[in-house]
């Protein structure tokens, strides 16, 4: 016999929070692997995504479908389950982007291990701000989900513009550096991809928060409809 829907929902919420924690830790490790030039850590990030994140995502989706079939939820329960399905998918996509960042670290190492580990290649300072803002958005998005905090969700949606702006700045500056030091173009091109992945992570945090607003208020705020 299936447990009652409230128990199911509490359990599911726990699974999403756990998935969020795994993805957040993996994101931190990916950034650390890039800044500290640690290929072992980058490899570990990719393994965690493949083994843990993907598997939790499937478990959460199956649980949602089972609850929907057995309990036929309505109102806040329905909105919660629809939100979980979408948040689950966003977290898995964030996981993939984190793995993509780690993959860039490994690629750079494999291209020229000595050069990569030398002091000549450093992640420019301007990345720090973008990483910090994206990590902050991620943490706040999960906090908004756990505490059903619509105000915080709105705040996160608005912060996305800052990450977009940071990415544009990084693009412009990296293009200039590539022109002035063409020898490092392979390394710098990979950093462009890291900036792009980080910006996409922030976009998924925004999606999560838009879904939290739907879960709480029942109104769809995607595509800047209400924001």
């Amino acid at each position, binding site marked *: 016999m299936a447990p*009652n*829907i*409230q128990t199911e929902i509490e359990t599911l919420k726990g699974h999403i929070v756990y998935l969020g924690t795994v993805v957040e830790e993996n994101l931190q490790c990916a950034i650390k692997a890039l800044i500290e030039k640690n290929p072992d850590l980058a490899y570990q990030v990719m393994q965690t995504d493949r083994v843990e994140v993907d598997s939790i995502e499937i478990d959460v989706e199956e649980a949602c479908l089972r609850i929907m079939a057995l309990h*036929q*939820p*309505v*109102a*806040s*329960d*329905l*909105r919660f389950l629809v939100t979980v399905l979408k948040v689950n998918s966003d977290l898995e996509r964030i996981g993939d982007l984190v793995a993509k960042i780690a993959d860039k670290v490994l690629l750079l190492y494999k291209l020229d291990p000595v050069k990569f580990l030398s002091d000549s290649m450093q992640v420019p300072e301007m990345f720090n701000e973008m990483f910090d803002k994206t990590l902050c958005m991620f943490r706040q998005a999960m906090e908004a989900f756990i505490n059903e905090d619509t105000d915080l969700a709105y705040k996160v949606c608005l912060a996305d513009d800052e990450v977009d702006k940071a990415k544009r700045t990084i693009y412009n500056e990296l293009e200039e550096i590539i022109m002035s030091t063409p020898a490092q173009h392979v390394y710098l091109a990979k950093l462009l991809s890291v900036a792009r992945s980080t910006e996409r992570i922030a976009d998924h945090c925004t999606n999560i928060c838009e879904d939290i607003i739907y879960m709480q*208020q*029942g*109104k769809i705020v995607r595509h800047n409809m209400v924001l």
Partner: protein
Amino acid sequence: MSHSATAIMSIEKPQVEVEHLNLFYGNSQALTDMSFGIPASQVTALIGPSGCGKSTFLRCINRMNDLVEGLRIEGSITIDGENINDPSLDVIELRRKVGMVFQKWNPFPKSIYENVIYGLRIAGIKERGVLDQAVEQSLKRAALWDEVKDRLQQSAMGLSGGQMQRLCIARAVAVNPEIILMDEPCSALDPRSTSRIEELIRELRGEYTIIIVTHNMQQAARISDYTAYMYLGELIEYGPTQKLFTVPERKETEDYITGRFG
């Protein structure tokens, strides 16, 4: 309990208009200050826990409560602008206009044919051609014609539960009502028969105003255009079904439809 005005939607040009309806059984109040409008040619579902007054309210609409001892009604119910509690109103005509289908099918121990034309016979119609046509038309509307057309003179008591319920719907439809009241019409039916009745309700919608009491919330969500949630004789929330089942305005409604009630 005071309710926000927005939780009870107002309908433009309602066919049935309920205003400050109060109903008492002796000293006990069963319905309290209900005010809302029911639109024509749509399906309106009444939901709420047992004893909340859904059936009592439904029976007010065709004055089935008239013979209940000690019953007193205040406020008004109008259908197409006419007050149905007006003493000068012809109750027989009201019940022709407002048909009813009950929880437990109740065909008469007569032939299928005689069951369908029962109301027409009472109205004095005797022409065979008219009656034959009414039988065919009503049974077709009730999606029963194909199953019984070759045995119209056989007893209705030989039909299955689902068929008997559809026969009762055909009997209600035969007198050409404008409104059909349904009091838990599927509660004693198996899923397949329930699905046929629900399909029938979808087909009848547009031609008739249907007001249905149901304990099955999924059924209310599936078949109705508007839903009213009642609790302890009060109308708590009333609005489009899609909205009520996704984003209800009142916490009481939310608690009931999500099963957190009580």
